[in-house]
């Protein structure tokens, strides 16, 4: 007999469904049959028939309490479905997510670009100033010989001081305030070149940079 014969297959399914509905299949066979119920309409129908037949012998088919319909009605009719609704919901969520990700990415990119130069500039200035500070320590021995070198050393010393101050500052607002102050000082220096120079009274009285 052909095992692929549709009649034989349906008979086999019906028998399995009877055993399954009666809880008489062993665990492996029950699991296998249950897996078929997920997608196989023939197995689904076989189970439905097995249950119908079993219920027939118990005095007719059992029915669910009609009250469940009210609950379904209130759940699905209060938010009417439409063809586009799930799709539109999906796209709306996707768009929101994309925008949020974009904003986060932009913020992530903007923050380092905003901070990085400051972070990197401070050590750079410190480095520059530090290298020049050795010159500054050595400066008094050469100041009398070369006025321009003296002026440069003063400038470098000021840079070191500024760099150290900048390095200590952690707050952005503090940086801005400091920048503003620096700018005011620079303008003032241009206006009164000698009297406002930190080392104006020392040395040979060489003209300050702003006066040149």
């Amino acid at each position, binding site marked *: 007999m052909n095992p692929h014969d549709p009649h034989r297959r349906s008979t086999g399914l019906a028998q399995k*469904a009877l055993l399954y509905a009666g809880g008489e299949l062993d665990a492996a066979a029950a699991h296998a049959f249950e897996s078929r119920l997920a997608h196989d309409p023939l197995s689904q129908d076989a189970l439905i028939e097995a249950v119908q037949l079993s219920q*027939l*012998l118990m005095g007719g088919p059992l029915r669910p309490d009609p009250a*469940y319909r009210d609950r*379904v009605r209130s*759940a699905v009719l209060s938010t*009417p479905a439409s063809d586009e609704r799930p799709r539109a919901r999906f796209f709306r969520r996707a768009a929101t997510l994309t925008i949020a990700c974009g904003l986060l990415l932009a913020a992530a990119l903007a923050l380092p670009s905003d901070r990085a130069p400051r972070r990197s500039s401070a050590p750079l200035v410190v480095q520059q100033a530090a290298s020049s500070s050795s010159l500054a320590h050595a400066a008094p021995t050469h100041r009398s010989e070369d006025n321009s070198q003296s002026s440069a050393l003063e400038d470098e010393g000021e840079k070191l001081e500024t760099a150290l101050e900048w390095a200590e500052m952690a707050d952005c607002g503090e940086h801005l305030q400091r920048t503003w102050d620096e700018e005011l000082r620079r303008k003032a220096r241009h206006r009164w070149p000698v009297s406002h120079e930190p080392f104006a009274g020392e040395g040979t009285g060489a003209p300050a940079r702003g006066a040149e």
Partner: protein
Amino acid sequence: MAILSDRQLLVSFRQGDACALEALFERYESAVFQFLMGILRDHHHAEDALQETFIKALRDSGTVAPERFRGWLFTVAYREALLEKRRRKLRPRSADEPAVAFPDPSPSGEDLAEQRDQARRLRELVGQLPSHQRAVIEARIYEGKRYREIAADLGCPINTALARMHEGLKRLRLLWEGAREPA
């Protein structure tokens, strides 16, 4: 009145037509409920799963083609049944909960009288079946034997006992429906 297709019913339902929803209940409620009963073997759990099945299947019905609505409904029902089974496994089982049988959904006095009357008429109809089918059905239903026991008692393979049961029940259904039709 013309029978509306699933597509027509779903289109009406999506426009908020409660009558279309009623028609969908009428069309699928019984089959889905029996399917769930087959998996869960418990009236109340099957009812809970039925409710969830309709809610989820209808809410997301826009994601499937209307002509595949039946398949979609059973897929959702299957998932709900497995979820319910898993929940039951996590819950401690009460001592009076039956292992296999379909429990009685607490019928009223009137329903009980009707059920008894139906059971009496069924027994009469079973008497009209061929003896080999009748023997299996009586052993199963009235003596509560398992199929393996029945096969052993009758000295036949279990598949033969099952085939006799299946054929006998189908014939019984025909007799039952014939007896209920108005003369």
